[in-house]
């Protein structure tokens, strides 16, 4: 099969102020292939693709489409060259129907006739095997349906070069399978497909070739068949790193936190948690898996004392006093006054965890200001702590007095996790602690969680990457629409088991 280049990039460079997002990138995408673009956070993957789809304009360098040099100045130009991009944050109008979103901005001849367009769109759906209700409003759709709308949209515009920015980040394993089979159909149809990702297993599964970027620079392209995960990681990070998570067994386990039959009704009157019961043990990582928004957030916040439950009890077995403490209906301050050391890394880091405009030292004080005796702040101890965290966790920051908001996502997370661990907790809860973090930082966080576990802390870890959950946790609690649909042993369960439980509705707690 002779390969025909769809897009060729030559010496593309783009800077934002002083930051070099891409430097002299050379890249070729062929027709009838899936090319993965792999790189850590901030390696310039999305910026590069945004230049092909007309969102940004390169500072210098050339772009060739089908062998001809082109200028892509706007998204409209990109459409004219049959380039379509599916953005990580969907570009859809919520109150429009799928069909309205798909025809939006398209210059067609003749009168505006949505019914006729719907028929044509349906044809595309049938051709590639998409299941989609075209008259459904976007705000009523699941994430996976929205993504389908995005893909159909670019196909309807006649795109034959498709760019997908982290398409699997929000999907369940079943949905990912469906997406990949659709992508394979399109590849067979001769389309050029570029997929941006940082999940290695997906790269291996779907792509024909892999291009690697590191810190804005193009490192190289390899045939997937000749690559393996450790080669790719090395290219991506620039050094060899250990990708295995070591799961140790802690001998002495105690029931630390017993959650019994709790229910929570939110302010819209919806029952977000329904009769949830589970036990978190010391020296164990309890994973919580589930589709985003299934009640994970509410569950952790209920334990932390931030939500008022309608039913059930939460019991804490205090290792110091040996007594049972009842946590329900207590505020975070009351919980702390009982001598319970509960640490919580919320998913909304800069909203609930840290104050963006305050510096690292001040953010340390948010947890310890009550210890002060005089009316004035004592900044010595928090300053030491801040510096220790910056050293230990390799936080990249100009200094301890830099506002947290200016740090990158991974570094913000390190500051937060570092502060929570410094409180020497007995229960450590983390919601999506590696969301948006690159491989290096992610594994550092996993190791920190493992350390906590070995110290006898009861760790509760809400994650989205099932591979990681299965490797890291001891047990996995699967939550589906606010109910526990199952608890599995992470050592024996498979991804498919967990994936099925995630979509199961009306599941019961079938124990262990």
């Amino acid at each position, binding site marked *: 099969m002779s390969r025909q280049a769809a897009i060729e990039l030559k010496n593309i460079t783009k800077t934002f102020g002083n930051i070099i997002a891409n430097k002299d990138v050379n890249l070729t995408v062929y027709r009838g292939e899936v090319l993965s673009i792999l790189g850590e956070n901030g390696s310039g993957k999305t910026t590069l693709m945004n230049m092909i789809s007309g*969102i940004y304009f390169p500072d210098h360098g050339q772009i060739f489409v089908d062998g001809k040099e082109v200028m892509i100045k706007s998204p*409209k130009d990109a459409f004219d060259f049959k380039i379509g991009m599916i953005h990580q944050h969907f570009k859809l*109008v*919520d*109150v*429009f129907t799928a069909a309205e979103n798909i025809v*939006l901005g398209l210059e067609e001849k003749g009168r*505006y006739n949505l019914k006729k367009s719907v028929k044509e769109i349906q044809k595309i759906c049938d051709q590639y095997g998409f299941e989609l209700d075209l008259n459904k409003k976007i705000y009523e759709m699941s994430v996976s349906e929205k993504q389908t709308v995005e893909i159909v949209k670019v196909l309807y515009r006649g795109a034959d070069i498709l760019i997908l920015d982290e398409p699997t980040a929000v999907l369940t394993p079943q949905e990912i399978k469906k997406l990949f089979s659709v992508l394979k159909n399109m590849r067979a149809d001769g389309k050029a497909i570029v997929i941006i990702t940082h999940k290695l297993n997906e790269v291996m599964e779907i792509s024909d070739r892999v291009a690697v970027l590191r810190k804005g620079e193009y490192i190289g392209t390899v045939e997937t068949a000749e690559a393996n995960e450790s080669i790719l990681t090395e290219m991506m990070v620039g050094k060899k790193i250990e990708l295995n998570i070591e799961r140790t067994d802690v001998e002495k386990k105690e029931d630390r936190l017993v959650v019994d039959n709790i229910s929570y009704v939110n302010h819209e009157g919806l029952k977000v948690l329904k009769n949830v019961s589970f036990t978190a043990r010391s020296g164990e990582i309890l994973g919580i898996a589930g589709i985003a928004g299934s009640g994970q957030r509410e569950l952790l916040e209920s334990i932390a004392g931030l939500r008022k439950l309608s039913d059930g009890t939460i019991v804490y077995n205090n290792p110091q006093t040996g007594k049972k403490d009842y946590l329900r209906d207590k505020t975070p301050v009351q919980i702390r006054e009982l001598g319970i050391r509960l640490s919580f890394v919320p998913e909304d880091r800069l909203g609930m965890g840290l104050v963006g405009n305050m510096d690292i030292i001040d953010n340390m004080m948010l947890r310890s200001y009550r210890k002060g005796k005089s009316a004035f702040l004592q900044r010595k101890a928090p300053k030491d702590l801040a510096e220790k965290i910056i050293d230990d966790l390799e936080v990249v920051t100009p200094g301890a007095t830099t506002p947290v908001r200016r740090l990158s996502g991974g570094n913000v997370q390190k500051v937060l996790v570092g502060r929570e661990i410094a409180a020497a907790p007995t229960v450590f809860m983390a919601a999506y602690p590696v969301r948006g973090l690159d491989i290096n930082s992610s594994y550092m966080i996993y190791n920190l969680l493992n350390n906590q576990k070995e110290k006898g802390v009861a760790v509760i870890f809400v994650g989205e990457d099932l591979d990681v959950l299965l490797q890291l946790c001891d047990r996995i609690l699967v939550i589906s629409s606010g109910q526990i649909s199952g608890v599995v042993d992470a050592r024996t369960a498979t991804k498919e088991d967990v994936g099925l439980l995630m979509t199961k509705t009306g599941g019961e707690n079938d124990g262990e």
Partner: protein
Amino acid sequence: MVVQIIQRAVMQGIPLLFGSTGEILTEKAGNLNLGTAGVMYVGGISGVIGAFLYEQSVEVLNPALAIIIPVLACLLGSLIMGLIYSFLTVSLRANQNVTGLALTTFGVGFGNFFGGSLIKITGLDVPSITLTRTSLCFQKSLPFASKLGWFGDVFLSYSFLAYVAVAIAIICTIYFNRTRSGLKLRAVGENPATADAAGINVEKYKYLSICLGSMIAGLGGLYYVMDYACGIWSNDAFGDRGWLAIAIVIFAIWRPNLSIVGSILFGGLFIVHNYIPGLTFASQELIKMTPYVVTIIVLIVISMLRKREFQPPESLGLSYFREDR
């Protein structure tokens, strides 16, 4: 008497209809123009200036010119207001609320200044400008309306601008829902980043709909002076009709066809106190308050229904910059 109340309600409602339709068009592009009160005021005084100059320059009015000149003057005045607002909020991305409020203050001041100046030029003792001759041209209604009994009185007795207002509102409804360009405009107001990625020129749509919206709203000011007030301009007589128009936008849940009903209803609530016998001055004011109470009730009902279609355009009040991250 019912017929009379309806007639008065419609005449009271038409300026509100112009204002609210213009504001809906603006808000559909994602821009909340709180300057509508000022825009309408400027529209009114610009029309007055045009009519005044024309009346001063000729002995006998040509009926066509007597209408065209004030209308053009009014459109020009309100267009300039629209341009100021769009330049500040779209190109410079200034805060829309602050810009709008400033525009209202500016518009009222502008109107009062030129109103006062014209009054001085006429040299009369009364604090108002009288443009009865122009007003008579504006007030012409269909000649056979009065022969059709109550039907003619209720539906056909108004001057041409009233029908223009209703027509614009209907055209806007069709435009929003049945045209490709209307779909694009709504996309700009809902989610400009999406519209941009779909190849829609966001700035162009915002400018066009703000400017057109301002011109439509400006006509409301002109109708008020020439028809409702019979060609008599006095400073501050326009009252808070601009704010009422913004309230109608919410009442009509951003649909121009509903704003026809809303405007006439609000117009009726505004004047109904004249027809209730035995009211004191204080209780009149209470009844004049009802439109605002109705708006608050509508707001409560809308937020209880939680239906996305009843919500304002999603990015209303936010400015858009493509390379923002």
